[in-house]
């Protein structure tokens, strides 16, 4: 079998050791790239520390608790602050490694060196010892944070990032474990990347074209000392916003993690999602690590170069802008390089389409915590050639009160989670006065915040993982976080939620009907607004967290998707599918520029406002009704969508904008109607009998589309 005629490769002359240490053949390594790299004959190890005086490589056989060898880096193998050594004869598949870093222990100066600890490589592509979710609770750190070596060969075939236009995205935020862990998911590998692959047909049918995965970098799910006060069971750090290995996919999120194949399994997930036309955005946490404050554990960064990796007070304590005990020193030149290396790795090796940056306002802070006007990290990411086509999305606030929505240092490149959108839509929906003008601004793509960048810079959402589910938003006035073990003190108090007349589950048919309507109202406003809509997994099927608005610590039915809701709330799911399909079939809803920047296209303005009377919106503070008409000339076809949102408790009759001859209003959705008449498949909407007037129900949303009048034969 020799179909290929390739001239044999000449062997490299450095593929052999030139000295022996601790029984292993070694030679001076290559400082770049950092991390462990498979090279001819062996593995190249490179690790940096500007304050360490010496470094030892510790090698393990996978699964054994004691090291098989310790190899000190000879002084000649050090270039600047980089320790680099090639070790020959190692089997990348069966070894694990770590480092002992030598240097001063002087916390006041920011140094925490302790050669008694074996540290994980910040560039580790695999992290071993954490393959089984939850099993690490009792294991010593020394046995659970082993660095591993991953091959970088994967047969992507023709796959590449999809590069969908940002304004065309419908983002779906999900938790890899929670999405399929519940037995009701019916997948063969629940709670894993492979399990998610089995649910791709569901995502396709729903119509979303981008998944945003909550943290998938290795983290410690057991990092929570609290217990559930009602059950006594230990709580978790389930969401995973406490990274310990930024280059390593979480082993227990892979069904093959126990075989060390999480890299292949995650790549296979990305490849399958791309085949289905779905982009992959990773929620990345670069504002802090899971090492906690100075009393926290040392896994890697603190032991390797504490004063480089962390923002420290002049006394050597950790600044805590993240609310988790430490703050990554992200505008330090070394850490900036680390973050850039990390994102390039995910973009190139894993074909990731974009990144959502948790508490991104932290990324604009200087090493002393002060705010930078031109943060080098954010500028580097904005202009990096490798990342040029990746979506960059900022959660533009932090835990120390910095709120930069609309003011994030964006370089015309960054999009933002639009917290203003969330708050305004919620307030309008629950009937707050004075919200009509605000609703208009948000539906028009928040030009007050993003005019320069365009509407796609606005990631619109009504709910996110952080906060109430959509169902709970209309079922609870107050958060109910008692099970989180903090006396209901954790979680946001500013929810702008309304329980529709009863706190929690209700058998009252009026309350239930109103809740169903409010959920649909929210979906319609979200999916017709200019900007990029984001849904939270489960909201399309009425998922509840029983009023818990901070379910980060629950690994169980409270936070897992219950797939029986697909049948139980089939009407809602159908409604959500249709609303997504509506957006995807109307270019008028997916502008890449704000309407103020859009030249007239013919029949109507790109966006016009209406009220009880056509062309006469009522902006008064007591008004609770607004209608928007979106228009685009789509290759000669009049693309026209009319959205009337009524937050008043009585229905209202609306005079409709007159359409030219040949076009007629058709009913897409009326949230006051009972299913299945609440929504119609796009393209199959029935015409309105009365083309001059329509009725919007009490606390209802009405959506009409213009279609050509069928020609009579």
């Amino acid at each position, binding site marked *: *079998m020799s179909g290929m005629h390739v001239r044999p490769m000449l062997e490299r002359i450095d593929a052999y050791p030139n000295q022996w240490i601790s029984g292993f053949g070694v030679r001076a390594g290559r400082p770049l790239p950092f991390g462990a790299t498979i090279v001819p004959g062996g593995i190249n190890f490179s690790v940096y520390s500007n304050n360490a005086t010496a470094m030892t490589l510790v090698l393990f056989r996978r699964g054994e608790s004691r090291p098989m060898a310790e190899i000190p880096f000879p002084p000649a193998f050090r270039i600047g602050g980089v320790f680099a050594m090639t070790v020959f004869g190692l089997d990348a*598949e069966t070894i694990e490694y770590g480092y002992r870093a030598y240097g001063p222990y002087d916390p006041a100066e920011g140094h925490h060196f302790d050669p008694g600890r074996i540290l994980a490589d910040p560039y580790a592509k695999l992290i071993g010892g954490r393959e089984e979710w939850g099993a690490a609770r009792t294991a010593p750190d020394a046995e659970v944070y082993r660095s591993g070596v991953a091959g970088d060969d994967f*047969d992507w075939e023709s796959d590449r990032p999809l590069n969908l236009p940002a304004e065309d995205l419908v983002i779906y935020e999900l938790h890899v474990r929670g999405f399929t862990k519940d037995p009701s998911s019916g997948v063969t590998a629940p709670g894993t990347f492979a399990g998610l692959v089995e649910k791709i047909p569901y995502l396709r049918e729903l119509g979303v074209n981008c998944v945003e995965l909550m943290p998938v970098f290795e983290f410690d799910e057991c990092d929570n000392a609290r217990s559930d006060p009602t059950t006594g069971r230990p709580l978790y750090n389930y969401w995973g916003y406490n990274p310990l290995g930024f280059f390593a996919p979480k082993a227990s999120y892979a069904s093959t993690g126990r075989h060390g*194949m999480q890299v*292949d399994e995650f*790549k296979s997930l990305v*490849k399958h999602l791309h085949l289905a036309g779905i982009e992959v955005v990773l929620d990345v946490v670069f504002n802090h690590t899971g090492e906690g404050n100075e009393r926290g554990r040392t896994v890697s960064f603190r032991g390797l170069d504490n004063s480089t990796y962390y923002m420290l007070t002049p006394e050597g304590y950790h600044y805590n802008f993240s609310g988790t005990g430490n703050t990554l020193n992200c505008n330090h030149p070394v850490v900036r390089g680390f973050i850039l290396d990390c994102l390039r790795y995910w973009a190139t090796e894993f074909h990731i389409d974009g990144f959502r940056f948790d508490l991104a306002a932290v990324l604009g802070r200087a090493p002393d915590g002060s705010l930078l006007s031109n943060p080098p990290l954010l500028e580097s990411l904005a202009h990096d050639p490798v990342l040029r086509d990746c979506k960059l999305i900022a959660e533009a606030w932090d835990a120390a009160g910095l709120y930069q929505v609309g003011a994030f240092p964006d370089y015309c490149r960054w999009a933002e989670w639009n917290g203003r959108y969330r708050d305004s839509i919620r307030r309008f929906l629950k009937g707050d006065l004075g919200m009509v003008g605000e609703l208009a601004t948000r539906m028009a793509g928040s030009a007050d915040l993003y005019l320069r960048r365009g509407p796609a810079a606005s990631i619109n959402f009504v709910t996110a993982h952080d906060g109430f589910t959509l169902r709970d938003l209309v079922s609870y006035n107050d958060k109910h976080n008692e099970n989180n073990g903090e006396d209901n003190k954790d979680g946001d108090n500013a929810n702008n939620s309304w329980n529709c007349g009863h706190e929690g589950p209700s058998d009252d048919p009026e309350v239930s009907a109103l809740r169903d309507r409010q959920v649909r109202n929210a979906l319609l406003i979200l999916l017709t607004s200019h900007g990029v809509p984001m849904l939270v997994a489960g909201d399309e099927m009425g998922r509840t967290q029983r009023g818990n608005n901070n379910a980060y610590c629950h690994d169980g039915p409270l936070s897992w998707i219950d797939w029986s809701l697909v049948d139980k709330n089939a009407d809602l799911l159908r409604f959500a599918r249709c609303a997504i399909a509506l957006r995807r079939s109307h270019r008028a809803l997916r502008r890449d520029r704000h309407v103020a920047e859009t030249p007239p296209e013919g029949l109507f303005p790109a966006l016009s406002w209406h009220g009880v009377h056509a062309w006469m919106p009522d902006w008064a503070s007591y008004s609770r009704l607004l209608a928007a008409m979106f228009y685009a000339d789509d290759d000669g076809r009049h693309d026209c969508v009319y959205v009337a949102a009524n937050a008043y408790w009585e229905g209202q009759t609306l005079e409709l904008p007159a359409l030219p001859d040949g076009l007629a209003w058709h009913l897409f959705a009326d949230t006051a109607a009972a299913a299945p008449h609440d929504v119609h498949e796009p393209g199959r909407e029935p015409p309105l009998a009365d083309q001059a007037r329509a009725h919007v129900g009490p606390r209802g949303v009405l959506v009409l589309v213009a279609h050509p009048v069928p020609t009579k034969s």
Partner: protein
Amino acid sequence: MQLAKYMQGDVTVIALDGRLDSGTAARVQQDLDALIPEGAPVLLDLSRLSYMSSAGLRVLLLVYRQAHDSGARIALAAVPHDAYEIMAATGFLDFFTVADSVTGGVAALTA
């Protein structure tokens, strides 16, 4: 890891017996290279495969690529449960025709 080759009609069947991991992968690849005829259908009988690691997956994919380049059809038969799950989860299974048994594999390759 032991390899055994025999013919079933026009199909070359190669049975793999033992562990396919980084310790055996390079030699197995060499041996397969010598055993697999150019352009003729090949069935890998994995019923006696006791373990397959990441390197093992790569051997199978390399064999697939080489067979594919020479215009030969290739299939896997009797993939043990664990190996099957690993191949499915990592996407390597997508490349192969898979049969429950050698008989089924021969039938698939001669259909």
